[in-house]
């Protein structure tokens, strides 16, 4: 089981299904609560965003942000699940964490997710490509 800590204190009502083990906490967060959770992790608790992972699952698409709490060596990973497979969209955290700009652009390009409020919603990998791909390349299905 995970050690008791205060990084997520006060967010109990915002956190859904949680999987915790030594040094790692993976928890689900509704899209509308993500900004508040990220603000607490990044500003109040001094966590650093390592990166984010988008995955195609049977439930739809999910985005898992990896926040590293360097003072303790633990990871806090809020997960946002999008069940609308045709038009996956969620709020961007790039206006809060500048370090999320590139990874959100990459996920938007490869998984077709729309990040609302992203300061620079451009392609990252094929921006000036002479023949950019016509679909998100990491999706198994065709949208």
């Amino acid at each position: 089981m995970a050690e008791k800590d205060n990084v997520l204190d006060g967010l109990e009502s915002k956190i859904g299904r949680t999987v915790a083990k030594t040094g790692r906490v993976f928890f689900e967060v509704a899209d509308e609560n993500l900004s508040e959770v990220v603000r607490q992790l990044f500003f109040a608790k001094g966590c650093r965003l390592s990166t984010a992972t988008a995955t195609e699952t049977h439930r739809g698409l999910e985005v898992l942000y990896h926040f590293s709490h360097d003072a303790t060596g633990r990871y806090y990973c809020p997960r946002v699940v999008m069940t609308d497979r045709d038009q996956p969209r969620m709020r961007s955290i790039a206006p809060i964490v500048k370090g999320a700009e590139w990874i959100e652009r990459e996920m938007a390009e490869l998984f077709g997710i729309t990040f609302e409020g992203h300061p620079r919603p451009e392609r990252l990998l094929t921006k000036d490509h002479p023949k950019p791909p016509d679909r998100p390349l990491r999706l198994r299905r065709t949208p």
Partner: protein
Amino acid sequence: MSQTVIPVGPFHPLLEEAEFFKIHVDGETVTGIDTDIGYMHRGHEFISERKTFTQSIFLVERICGICSTSHPLAFVHAVEDVDNIEIPDRAAYIRTLIGELERIHSHLLWLGLAGHFIGYDTLWMWAWKYREPVLEIFETITGNRNHYGMMRVGGVARDVPPEAVPPLLETLDMIERKMTMIAKAAADDPVLRSRLKGVGVLSRQAAIDYCAVGPTARASGLAIDVRKDEPKDAYGLVDFNKIVLENGDVYDKLVVRVLETFESIKIVRQCLEKLRSVTGPILNDVKEVAAGEGIGRYEAPRGEVFHYVRTDGSNRPLRHKVRAPSYVNIPTCEASCKGIPLADALITLAAIDPCYCCTERAVRLVDKQGVRVAADLLQLSREKTERLRRDVHG
């Protein structure tokens, strides 16, 4: 107001890798920088999900040619994290030994390149000359100068033979003496100091905002080092210091790397000593990996390498995410390059020790003087050093 855009890339003339920096300039001052990546996108994550865990180790090892053990190490940490797999003590020391030797050769490689960028070719020749014995150590231990193939889930693939330890310690003493000589020569050189001091400053706040890692973050006063923050392998068992400086300029980034090289030599020496006494197996037999999620990371020479693995109980990952340190460090150039003279742009871009094959271009400059190419930037950088040299030495 019209702005000139200098394209550095899509193939960097010195680092010889593909990445596209569009440097926006107003006269001689850099006003912004725009990076295009994707020229070397090889689809490692996609391929990895079709390979077994052991096969993926060889795949991720080929993400980067310089920090070629950092990716496998972070990957095996991630798989081990899924199922809380333990490794034998001897394997822990061998992993740490290989990781630190890699840091020594990588920092020496950067030191040489940095010298070459600013027209200080003596530094380049020295650094690369004394990097060579480190590669020879690798050849002795692993059979390869690079791409060692040492990591396995549950331990390491090859043992370090006891008879190899005394000659390795002698080589290490020689490298330490030469490093001391290089460090003293670099520290005493007024040209180098005035060329790099106060150049391309990345503030502490910018380092936090951009989520910078490694020597780039530590030179800006952020005390983050995976080896100390989450000690795995033998890092909790050896004595070393976390090198943190405050100014965030290119000079501090150089000093961080030089001092870290000495710390790495210290760690390698301790590991070699321990390997004389710690005996036992080097690999735990891992029959299967349970379903779950795991995060593995390792402090590569450029900063934190991050791997995330999700498994379903089979012998291959359902999802494998890789994040190399340069992916988060390259965007910091937006902050550190703003407002600096064009002659300093190249060394500032190089100061984060960008690894393009990890992340994934110098540019054509078209202005009233005609067409200038990225090689002109190099010339500009070297001319500035030459001017300073004349000013200092008369």
